[in-house]
Every structure is written in structure tokens, then in C-alpha cells.
């Protein structure tokens, strides 16, 4: 018996629509088994993970807060992946954006700087992230170095840079030697939308980014070129598209969005620069991008769903003593199922029962 793939005559649109749902279903089944193996009741564990956060207002806001960086980063990543450029260093671009924006917050600390500080910080974050994202892109188009490896290596470098800054030059003198900057001034802080709530302006920015991404991909020539370069490089060459320039553009946008997400996170929910500002947003956003089918609306939904797993994971740890790593396992398994189900769009899976002799020749 063996599994054989049969190419479909054309992409199955029906499956393209339901495949993320199948993937989520299969992931939930797998998770139930994992919960049972950990000695927890699967039904109540899944309830704590996926239902409880949805029924209380504070958690709902928290989901939107966590989804904000995920969605912003994933929109940028989707551009890269559509152009067949593999930016996997969004985590580093996120951190550099946070560092670049925080520089202004630290420098203006305690001065009577006006309300221009926050917009300038967001701009700096975006520019910092974009420049950092351009490093692997330039290494790729200029020297042919694998952008996968260089962008990933830069994550570690960014992490160490942030660590150096908050332990060294930017450390809060009144911070009892903790590696953190002082709390940002009010003018350097992302305002909350509802007084006393958690939801902040970043959520609105994320929605604008989703809309801009949708317009870019569906309505502009550049968006079209990005899709063609990834899907049909030969056709792109005949069309006279400059694929190198498009890769640079995709990385720059992706880095800018990750960087802005970074400074929003620091100037918003966190309030100061410190190590560990990201629970792996840059990597989880890769899953968000694929689960959302590299489509802006899909990414918005996927981002909210992945944010739910972060919140659910925290609650499950408190309520049921389920280790936090289960969330990462969940996210990894989910990505596997998403990718496997995507294969169904192009292929039919068939189990073939053949005699050993034939199967040896055919495999």
C-alpha cells in the first residue's frame, strides 16, 4: 500500500477555502491526544484554551493586543513569501524596530518634548526594521547569499544588541539594576482606546495595514508583479519585471511593518524597553501568514486565532498547570497541518494497493 499524489487539472477553490478549517480541526484532535497524554481532561483543556478567553472582556481585549504585532508582521511576510523570498528573521526586525523607536523615547525622557515624539518613534521603528530587513535582501540579490540563513542569524544579533543597550547605556538608573529602560513618558506611549482598558491605537494601525496590504496586492501593479515573480519567475522575466528590485521592496516593507510592530509593542503594552519583549511574535507570524493563505483578510483572522492560543495557553497554565510550551507545540502542529492540507489544493491523495514489484518501479 502506498500514498500517491495525483495532480489536479486545476486548483481546487473549494478546498482552498476549507483547508485551513480542516487543518485547525486536525490540530485540535492532535492536541486532545496530547492533553490526554499529559493527564489532563482534553475537553476542559480545550475549553480553557479556546472558549474561556472569548467570554470575558479583558481577554478579548488582550487577544486584540496580541494579534496586533502578529497581523502586522504577517502581512509583510506574506509579501515576501508571495515573491518567493524567505524572510524568516522578522523577529530580529521587530526587535530592531523596538530599539530604533526607543532611542527617541530614551533621549527625550524627562524633557518637555511635544506630541510629535510618538509619531517620530513609530517612523524610526519602521525605518530601523526596514533597514535591518534590507541586509539579508541585499546579501541575496547582490551576492546570492541565502536570505533564509542570513535573516535568521540577524535575529540573534538583534537580541544581543537589545540586551547590551538595556544593560548598558540605556539602563534605568533608578531601576534597581534590572535590565530595562525607564518607563516611557506619556508623549512616548501608544494611547489606549478605552480608558482603563488594554486595547490601544496599535490595533487600529494593524487594521489599516491589513487594508493597505489588500489594496497593494489586489489593485496595484507592484502587487501584481510581486505575485508573478513568486508564482512564475519565467513569466516575470519575459514581462520585464525586475525581480531583484521586487525582493528588496518586499523585504523593506516586511522589515518596516515588523519594526513598527516592535515599537508599538514597546511603547504600548510593555511601556519600556527590556529583553523578552516578544514571545516569538516574528516566528508565530510565519504561521499566521500561511494559515491566512498569504491573503490580508485571511491573515487578520489567522492572527486573531493565533493570539487566542497565546492567551489560552497562559490561562491553561494558570488554571490547569499545563506547561506554556504546549502553545508552541500547538503552533508547530498547526503549521504542519496547514501545509499538508494546502497540498490538497494542488493534488488528490490516493492510497494505492499495488503488487510490490510494480510499486518498486513506480515509486
Amino acid at each position, binding site marked *: 500500500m502506498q500514498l500517491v499524489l495525483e495532480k489536479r487539472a486545476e486548483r481546487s477553490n473549494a478546498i482552498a477555502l476549507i483547508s485551513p478549517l480542516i487543518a485547525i480541526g486536525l490540530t485540535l484532535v492532535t492536541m486532545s491526544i496530547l492533553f490526554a497524554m499529559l493527564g489532563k481532561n482534553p475537553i476542559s483543556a480545550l475549553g480553557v484554551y479556546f472558549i474561556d478567553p472569548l467570554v470575558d472582556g479583558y481577554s478579548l481585549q488582550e487577544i486584540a493586543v496580541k494579534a496586533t504585532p502578529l497581523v502586522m508582521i504577517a502581512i509583510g511576510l506574506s509579501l515576501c513569501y508571495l515573491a518567493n523570498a524567505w524572510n*524568516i528573521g522578522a523577529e530580529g526586525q521587530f526587535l530592531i524596530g523596538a530599539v530604533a523607536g526607543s532611542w527617541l523615547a530614551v533621549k527625550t525622557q524627562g524633557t518637555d518634548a511635544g506630541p510629535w515624539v510618538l509619531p517620530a518613534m513609530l517612523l524610526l521603528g519602521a525605518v530601523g526594521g526596514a533597514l535591518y530587513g534590507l541586509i539579508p535582501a541585499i546579501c541575496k540579490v547582490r551576492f*546570492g547569499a541565502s536570505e533564509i540563513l542570513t535573516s535568521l542569524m540577524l535575529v540573534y544579533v538583534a537580541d544581543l544588541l537589545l540586551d547590551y543597550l538595556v544593560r548598558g547605556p540605556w539602563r534605568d538608573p533608578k531601576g534597581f539594576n534590572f535590565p530595562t529602560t525607564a518607563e516611557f513618558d506619556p508623549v512616548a506611549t501608544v494611547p489606549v482606546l478605552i480608558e482603563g482598558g488594554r486595547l490601544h491605537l496599535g490595533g487600529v494601525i494593524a487594521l489599516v495595514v491589513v487594508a493597505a496590504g489588500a489594496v497593494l496586492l489586489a489593485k496595484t501593479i507592484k502587487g501584481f508583479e510581486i505575485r508573478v515573480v513568486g508564482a512564475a519567475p519565467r513569466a516575470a522575466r519575459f514581462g520585464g519585471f525586475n525581480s531583484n528590485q521586487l525582493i528588496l521592496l518586499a523585504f523593506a516593507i516586511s522589515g518596516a511593518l515588523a519594526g513598527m510592530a516592535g515599537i508599538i509593542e514597546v511603547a504600548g503594552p510593555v511601556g519600556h524597553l527590556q529583553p523578552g519583549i516578544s514571545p516569538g511574535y516574528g516566528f508565530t507570524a*510565519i504561521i499566521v501568514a500561511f494559515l491566512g493563505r498569504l491573503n490580508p483578510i485571511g491573515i487578520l483572522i489567522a492572527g486573531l486565532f493565533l493570539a487566542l492560543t497565546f492567551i489560552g495557553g497562559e490561562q491553561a497554565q494558570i488554571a490547569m498547570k499545563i506547561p506554556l510550551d504546549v502553545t508552541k*507545540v500547538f503552533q508547530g502542529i498547526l503549521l504542519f497541518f496547514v*501545509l499538508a492540507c494546502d497540498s490538497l489544493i494542488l493534488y488528490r491523495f490516493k492510497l494505492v494497493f499495488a503488487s510490490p514489484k510494480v510499486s*518498486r518501479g513506480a515509486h
Partner: protein
Amino acid sequence: MGLIEAIILAVLAASTPLLLAATGELVTERAGVLNLGVEGMMIVGAACGFGGAWLSGSVIIGALCGIGAGVLMSLIFALMTLGLAVNQVATGLALTILGVGLSGLIGSRFVGEKISLAPHLYIPGLTDIPLVGRILFGEDAFVYLSLALVIGVWFFLYKTRTGLILRAAGDNHTSARALGYPVLRIRMFAVMFGGACAGLAGAYLPLAYTPFFIPGMTAGRGWIALALVVFASWLPGRLVIGAYLFGAVTILQLHAQGWGVGVPSQLMSALPYLATIIVLVLISRARTGGSTAPAALGTVFVPDR
């Protein structure tokens, strides 16, 4: 023991996990499969390797657990990319994300525990030779194993018929298939070999490098191993040079931190990663005439029936 001797011993120890993982990945890539999940397989190998050794009290059982874990992880990858024709880059990333989570889950109950490290070879007389004795005859078994593995892989790839077929599958899967070779099966074994090596490389860290398990202890070594394969131009011999160079960078930056060189310790810690980027750029630049990578590397193969 002199300082130079100590440094060389430390370099060999730091290089061995890189060499083990890179050797496995080299075979995988020579068969045409790009498995980016080395880091994930390594970190699960580290957790299972430590767990096995801690529960059984035996380094060998620990190493076997690490190898087994690496193979199981690689089988998921093989099922996805070879069985279901999924994009190899995305699957490799998924494997790493899953591996980091799994290792945390498996390793959480071992955090804070300690084991005794793998013993070092001791041959009376030979090991006692000044300067070179400890370096040549006083390593742990993994160091010798990793070198034997490279020689074995070189012999396999260039001196055996099966090795030739494996390289053919990696250079042109359609032709290899037309000649009647089972491309997907060859690739599956290559992926499993890569998984075994990555699992062993991960297990090396808690078994022979630091006697405990900490989450994320591979610290990007799997990714550096991937870069080493590019550095080596997919040639086993150059892998040894590359791995030892990187091991040297790692150890020298540690020593430099100890000597209190006037630069931030974080900059020194970033050196191995920065060196990887610089090396990748230099190697890729030098190779503008034509790539030495296996021609079918990373491409999906679905055999026609």
C-alpha cells in the same frame, strides 16, 4: 595543561555538534532535500538525549535516545515533503517551531538535574604525551565518531554505487527516476540520516558539553550547521575545516570575554552569527560562475505514474 592545549580541546568540543549536524544535512541535501529543521531536530535530540541519560544513567542510551528523537522528527519532515509534496522551506520552519516547543515540554522535568559527562579517552602513555597527547588521544567518543562519520560519508558519496545514485537523485530526480531508481525512497533515507545526525548533535550538548539541559540550549547551532554545508560547497572534507573554524570563533569569543577585552560581551557573543553571515556572503560571491549546490535541491518531486 597549557592554555593553548585547553583552547584546542575546547574548540574541538564546540565544533563537534556542528560537524555532526552538518554532516547529516550534507547527505540530505546531496539527495536533493533541503531540511531547514536541523535546529528543531537538534533541540529535541538534546532534550531526549539528556532525558535518556538521566533516567538510565548511561551516556550511550542517552545518545541513542537523541538519535531516535532526531529520526522521528525527520520522518515527519519526510512524510510532509516527500509524501505530500509540501514546500520544503516551510516544512523545515514548521519542524523547528515544533521542535522548540516539544523540547521544552519534554525537557521541563529535567531542568535543574545534572548528569556526569561522557568520559574522555585515556590510553596510558599516549594520552600523557605532552602537548598533543590530550588533543589526539584524550577526547570524548563523539569527537572521534564525528570524524569517522565524515570519512564514512565521503567514502559513501564518492566511492560507492549507492552514493552515486543518491547524488544523481539530488542533481536530477527526473533522470534518476527514468533510470529506475526509487528517488523518493532514497530521499527518505537521506532525510532520516540527517535526522539521526542532528539528534546526535543535539544530544552531544547535554551529554558531553554541559552536564545539564536548558531550554533553547542549541542556540542556533542547527542554523549554523546549515550555513556550514553551504560554506563547504557540499563537500565533506571542507565541512571539517568549516566546523573547526566556527568552533574556534565560538571559543575565542568566550575567552576574549574572560580576558576582559574592552568590548561589550554581547558583541563577542554575536561573533559566531556575524561570522556566519560574512562567510555566506563571501562564499556565495566567490561562486558567481556557477553554483555547486545539488541541482535539484529543495524542489518538489511527484513521480508520474
